[in-house]
């Protein structure tokens, strides 16, 4: 197998931007990934490209990479069975993303009206910090890191990329909080915007690539287990009304800024 197949996506796209353009034609947006550490050969593992288009896609990638038509790596991905919607535990994670995306859509409004000199102004930003920490991170990311990812080899690039995003997001939020206490407008604006940008891409990667890839491999037994474990975590580790409290927080902000209810990026 040519070396390019084992190179990280970021390196491949840097050398051969045309490869990224070919991938996008097949619904694979990895060329724009903020981390880009997945090997090119693994992309067929992670994306559910229709069986009848795989050979054509690999031939075009090979040509774009200047190596002539390539054959798909053997055993790279099992043939897809009949179409299948997301499983209930994955639907739950996607639904949680929807609320997080509503916060992301509110960030430009928060920044346009940023006020760190009054208590209500600071409280608004700290409310967003609380949402990110206790809903987006503890309530949602914890289900991924503590439960879902444990069913897979966590050393795989695709999971490492997601965990790196989580870590980067936590650093942004910590800096936002510090900026609020120091009345540092520039730091708050820069870090909150960076969080918005990071999470927007992160959620797209999970909804479009990671979750469908995981769903295809989990099998009924583990899907049932995940469903039960998510329910136990939500009911057992968080106070009653935890998720509703944060839904109400988002609704209140949307009302304040006159945004359409449920608007996402």
């Amino acid at each position, binding site marked *: 197998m040519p070396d390019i197949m084992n190179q990280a996506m970021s390196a491949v796209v840097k050398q051969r931007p045309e490869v990224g353009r070919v991938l996008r034609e097949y619904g694979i947006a990895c060329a724009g990934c903020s981390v880009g550490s997945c090997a090119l050969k693994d992309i067929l593992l992670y994306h559910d490209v229709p069986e009848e288009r795989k050979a054509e896609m690999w031939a075009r990638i090979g040509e774009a990479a200047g190596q002539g038509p390539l054959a798909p790596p053997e055993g790279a991905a099992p043939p897809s*069975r*009949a*179409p*299948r*919607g*997301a*499983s*209930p*535990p994955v*639907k739950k994670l996607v639904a949680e993303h929807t609320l997080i995306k509503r916060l992301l859509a509110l960030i430009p409004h928060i920044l346009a009206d940023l006020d760190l000199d009054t208590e209500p102004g600071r409280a608004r930003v700290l409310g967003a910090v609380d949402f990110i920490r206790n809903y987006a991170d503890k309530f949602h990311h914890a289900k991924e890191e503590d439960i879902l990812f444990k069913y897979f080899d966590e050393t795989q690039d695709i999971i490492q990329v997601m965990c790196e995003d989580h870590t980067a997001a936590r650093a942004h939020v910590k800096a936002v909080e510090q900026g609020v206490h120091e009345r540092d407008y520039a730091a708050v604006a820069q870090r909150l915007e960076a969080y918005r940008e990071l999470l927007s891409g992160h959620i797209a990667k999970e909804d479009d690539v990671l979750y469908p890839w995981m769903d295809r491999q989990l099998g*009924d*037994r583990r*899907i*049932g*287990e995940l*469903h*039960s474990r998510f*329910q136990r975590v939500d009911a057992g580790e968080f106070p009653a009304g935890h998720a509703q409290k944060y839904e109400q927080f988002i609704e209140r902000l949307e009302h304040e800024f006159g945004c359409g209810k449920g608007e996402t990026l």
Partner: protein
Amino acid sequence: MSNLPCGCPGSRAQQFEPAAGAADEAPGARASQLRQWPVQLHLVSPAAPYFKGADVLLSADCVAYAAGDFHKDFLQGKSLAIACPKLDQGQDIYVEKIKGLFEDAEINTLTVAIMEVPCCMGLLNMARAALDASKRKAPLKAVTVSVRGGVLAEEWF
């Protein structure tokens, strides 16, 4: 059999050749994946030990005859109940029994395998009604099988 005046696709006579490769099957017996008795939905009890925490397959009767590898592709690793939503009597009992699987047997998942003919959708509707009525929720998956034995669609609810 001639077509019924109502044009019911479930009863319309069709004849087709065996699927490609059907005549070239390797000799030898495939082991049964069945791990319980009885299997008919009227006869099974949600309290039976083989349903406790199980992945359960609720199959329309015809699926086992249409799918070439029913035991390997559908039954393996699952407890079973079978029913016909078109011909069976007492289907209100079916809904209660399926609800009992969710609530009392605390099943892990329920897979409902149905044929593509419209009348078979009744079995999925019963399962969904039972899940809606159940206090305890578990993943429910529908698998639709063609009269030629292929899987046409899988969908989680």
